[in-house]
């Protein structure tokens, strides 16, 4: 119960700070807009090309936006040495990880919904029928991405070359998740039932469990070192 309350105050604080500063959300919105313009110019009006590349483009957008957002996770903690305050707070540090992960997950899902809406508008897509399946794939993919991203953001927060190191560490670990999400997204957007991509969904769910468990188990050690 205390663990949940401690995790909750971290989520509450992060979302409140973001609501007031709007630093991450504003930056990601304009970044997404820019990305869509680039995609639009690169692909042109060819619908077949678009259909073939859409899953990859969609996840490229999610990942690039996610890298920017996750990389900022612990920036707020550097202000006034709050990082040290977190370290000195008595109790299980994994509650901080769970709180940070939940906050990142919410923020990433908002950005992804925004990006998806922009894709629909820019490319005049019809995805209403595929939306429930797509939502499940995106949710599973985002949990895995945010779980490792939050952990690596903490690991690189105090490092000088963190902007470089963060994606270099994160992306190789994300290969199984990226592979599964792009494949499952492709199938869902082509109108295949979820049963047809069950193996990818199982892989995503397993990766999520492993990544979250690894984060919870190692965060204390990581913060202390």
């Amino acid at each position: 119960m205390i663990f949940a309350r401690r995790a909750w105050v971290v989520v509450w604080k992060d979302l409140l700070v973001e609501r007031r500063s709007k630093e991450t959300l504003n930056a990601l919105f304009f970044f997404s807009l820019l990305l869509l313009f680039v995609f639009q110019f690169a692909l042109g009006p060819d619908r077949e090309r678009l259909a073939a590349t859409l899953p990859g483009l969609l996840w490229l957008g999610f990942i690039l936006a996610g890298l920017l957002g996750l990389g900022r996770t612990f920036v707020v903690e550097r202000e006034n040495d709050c990082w040290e305050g977190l370290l000195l707070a008595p109790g299980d540090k994994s509650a901080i990880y769970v709180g940070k992960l939940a906050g990142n997950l919410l923020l990433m899902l908002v950005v992804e919904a925004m990006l998806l809406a922009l894709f629909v508008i820019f490319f005049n897509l019809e995805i209403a029928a595929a939306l429930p399946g797509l939502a499940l794939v995106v949710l599973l993919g985002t949990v895995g991405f945010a779980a490792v991203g939050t952990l690596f953001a903490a690991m690189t927060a105090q490092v000088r070359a963190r902007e470089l190191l963060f994606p270099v560490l994160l992306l190789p670990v994300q290969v199984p998740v990226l592979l599964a999400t792009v494949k499952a997204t492709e199938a869902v957007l082509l109108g295949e039932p979820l049963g047809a991509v069950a193996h990818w969904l199982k892989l995503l769910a397993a990766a999520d469990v492993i990544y979250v468990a690894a984060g919870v188990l190692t965060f204390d050690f990581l913060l202390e070192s």
Partner: protein
Amino acid sequence: MAPDALVRVSGLRKAFGGHRVLDGVTLEVRAGEALALLGANGAGKTTLLRILATLARPTRGTAWVAGHDCARDPERVRPHIGLVAHGSYVYEDLTALENLRFWTGLAGLGVPRTDLMAALAAVELERFAGERVRTFSAGMKRRLSLARFVLARPRVLLLDEPFAGLDQRAKKWLEEHLQAFKAGGGAIVMATHSFGRELAVADRIAILAGGGIALDTPRGSRGADEIARLYRLYTENGA
């Protein structure tokens, strides 16, 4: 070791690469006692405080706070310490009240709003409870950081230049608060560069020089001039 020692440091060494900042530091601070650490820049005052606060590990030797080893058992030490360092540990985009609510919540303390407001009143910030910290002066942030310890009630206060950035009124409040903390059985280790009024709260002064304790003596009735003379004597000889 004195039975009522809340802080005990024995043969402490801390090296950064080949440079030994602390080497063979031994000292004790009892319950109800305040120790002022004096020393030139780079003498190791902040490093010693960081080891006691479990933020740095000693290279050799031991540091104990409230009966727990700072390096081996930091989680048992942390509930007993309050650290006021150069950073104020406050979030600029939260209000004063929200900052207190966050830190007490993170410590697992379910503190009601009335107690949070009372803590803000104790540091004379109750009028600014709903104001974002971004609008605060450095002194106000320092007072807000101190308000956390009004609520957490640690047994040992570790203070790094605690009077820096405070106006005369806030200094007086802090002095009174520290005296009350000592009277309640708390121990204080305070790093400072000041020899004046800030030292009034100290029962002992220790001068760090050359990596070790060059002098550890009761403050007694020594005035600022006498302490400055001792400081010059030991830092010039020990440096």
